[in-house]
């Protein structure tokens, strides 16, 4: 068991001007499940590989426990990359499939058996130890492969998009399995994914990266409730947070016809505009003429409630986070018994307790 520390860790690929990972600082607690998440090119895999010893560190250090591992070879770090190479051997028993790598490492037979049995207990594979993998179900085979990593009892597990080649159903199944297994084992784990839903459901804490720079490290709840900037606000949560650029006025910000109260201190240092963020479930549908007018484009019925996708009727109001090709819709969750129709106009405003305000230039959070 061990802590992991990224200490100003930097990686610049030869020939590049900008670092792929730029002065990364994260303290990972003993036994913690930390998820590195970000869009492609954000540096998350590079960060993991730096920890694994697969990628050179050009600046700063990396610590495992109280050992500086920055310049150690992968073998000497006592970390295990899980799932990368998953093969089951048809003629060998489940026990041998789990334990054979220990035999190569020179561990004695009794010890191998002990560790295999412990792992089998955790993985609910005890009754199958003497069987051949062919006799197992798909999910059990997955667990045998996990067992191969567990018996090595490394100080840290590393996983790089381990579910990316599984079909959707197995992905959800395995996601839950890995998370609960990690909690039972209590081994420090660093997990990379581009999928924020995976990150939210699995991690004790999440580290969001973009362009090689750490945006925020926090628990899923904290990250959801208090995103540190516009990028995190738009990246975490599904459907995504609505982000609207609005003018600052006396005593608050102007949201359509309404002035929303925002404490003066919060707006200090903001320019003429700020970005107001509101999650779809925190959108209040108000009366005609109150707040922001939205034209309804699509309604998605979910039973108890529904999602409304629309466009601000005032064309001057732009939503952040869309790309050129596709304007981002405004999304509101509404009561399933009072659902508007396509083409209707509705008026909305944020639930003031759950409103986020960001600096329009820097993107940094202004409210708390």
């Amino acid at each position, binding site marked *: 068991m061990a802590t992991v520390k990224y200490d100003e860790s930097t990686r610049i690929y030869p020939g590049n001007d900008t670092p792929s990972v730029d002065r990364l600082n994260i303290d990972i607690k003993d036994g913690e499940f930390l998820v590195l998440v970000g869009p492609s090119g954000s540096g998350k895999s590079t960060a993991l590989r730096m920890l694994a010893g697969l990628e050179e560190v050009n600046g700063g250090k990396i610590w495992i426990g109280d050992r500086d591992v920055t310049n150690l070879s992968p073998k000497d770090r006592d970390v295990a990359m899980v799932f990368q190479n998953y093969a089951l051997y048809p003629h060998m028993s489940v026990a041998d499939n789990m334990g054979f790598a220990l*035999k190569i490492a020179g561990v004695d037979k009794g010890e191998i058996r002990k560790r295999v049995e412990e792992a089998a207990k955790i993985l609910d594979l005890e009754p199958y130890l003497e069987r051949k993998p062919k006799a197992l179900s798909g999910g059990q*085979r997955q667990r045998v492969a996990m067992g191969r990593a567990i018996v090595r009892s490394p100080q840290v597990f590393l996983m790089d998009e381990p579910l990316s080649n599984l079909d959707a159903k197995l992905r959800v199944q395995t996601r839950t399995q890995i998370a609960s297994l990690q909690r039972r084992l209590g081994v420090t784990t660093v997990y990379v994914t581009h999928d924020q839903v995976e990150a939210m459901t699995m991690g004790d804490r999440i580290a969001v990266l973009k362009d090689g720079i750490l945006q925020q490290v926090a628990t899923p709840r904290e990250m959801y409730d208090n995103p540190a900037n516009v990028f995190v606000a738009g990246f975490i949560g599904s459907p995504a947070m609505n982000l609207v650029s609005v003018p600052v006025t006396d005593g608050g910000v102007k949201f359509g016809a309404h002035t929303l109260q925002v404490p003066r201190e919060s707006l200090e240092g903001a320019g003429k505009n700020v970005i107001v963020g509101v999650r779809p479930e925190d959108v209040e549908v108000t009366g005609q003429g109150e707040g922001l007018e939205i034209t309804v484009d699509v309604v998605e019925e979910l039973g108890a409630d529904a999602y409304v996708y629309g466009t601000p009727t005032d064309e001057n109001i732009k939503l952040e986070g869309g790309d050129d090709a596709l304007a981002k819709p405004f999304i509101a969750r509404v009561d399933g018994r009072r659902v508007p129709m396509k083409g209707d106009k509705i008026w909305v405003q944020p639930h003031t307790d759950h409103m986020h305000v960001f600096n329009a230039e820097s993107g940094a959070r202004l409210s708390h």
Partner: protein
Amino acid sequence: MALQITTARPDPALLDLPWSTPLEDWPEEHLAALPRGISRHIVRFVKLSGRVIAVKEIKEDIARREYAMLRNLRRLDQPSVEPFGVVSGRVAADGTPLDACLLTRHLKFSLPYRALFSQGLRPGTETRLIDALAVLLVRLHLTGFWWGDVSLSNTLFRRDAGSFAAWLVDAETGELLPALSDGQRAHDLDIARVNIAGELMDLQAGELLDEAIDPVVISNRIVTRYEELWRELTAMEEFDTGERWRVEERIRRLNSVGFDVDELAISTDIDGTRISIQPKVVDAGHHSRRLLRLTGLDVGEGQARRLLNDLDSYRAASDRQNDDEELVAHDWLTRIYEPLTRRVPRELSGKLEPAELFHEVLEHRWYMAERAQHDIPIEDAIEDYVASILPSKPDEVSVVGVDTVEMPVIAD
């Protein structure tokens, strides 16, 4: 969604394959044989316009990525299977979507390691396979390919004048980088070592490999062989200015392990007493390129070496040392090599590649001569070989078998 076929070699016959059926259930009439590696995906060999194509059922994005990766490897002149196409947008008769298929050409005369082992082996074969894999891994690493899943299952072997040449068959986990870090190379080697040991232990558990062979010892060989070769190909060497012959010597050593030196960095220290040299660009296939240039024959590195040796003895025997090398090579090709390989009856031509057959006949002649205590003409050797040895060899042009082992990754 409509069926979508991406291929560099459009063949209308592709449309006749039963794409709306899961690969597992494809009718016998389309199948050529079954593959013999261990795989997580369903793989089938399919007959297509006189060719054999390997079809792997796999998620579309992964199929496309692997297709592109194999094309890149071929472009970089690496020994890998040839990508043929990707078929996506498959839908079953009942409307459920099916995974995409990656198509690669079956590599003729290639042998999956499991097929080799179930034939019963000459002693030492397992180490020869590892040596071949070490050469492949060094070559791939030198071009910047980080394999990620090095194993015997993901390699195909071709006979190469008594030893083997290794080909990459599974590029799914690979990445092409500008250069590999030491950590990345060590990672591939470690994966190779564990996988090879596991694969050999599995063969023992299935009673396909002699109990006396130690899988751990054999698997360690990948590391030592790889490191020896890597050092020879990349290490910096330093010596006194007086020892300039060592430049030549280094190049000769590289040639003897089958590499050409395309770029060698030479530098001297300030007062000019020491020289250091380091190969910067090396290219595998020293002998096979030379043979190709002289004769147009495209064969394995070991086979080329053997054929070049025979060409040299032909030159000496016919006393033509002063003739133009190309002319002698042409005569050797038309008078010795081609007539000999043509002596194989058509029904036996699927046993061995022509160049491998030539190698075998040379070996056979040596044994005959030893027994008879005098030289044997090559014509007599081939006649005896075709009559007494070749018929009992297994057909290897496209290996057939039934013990395919698939461990599909699917939800319960």
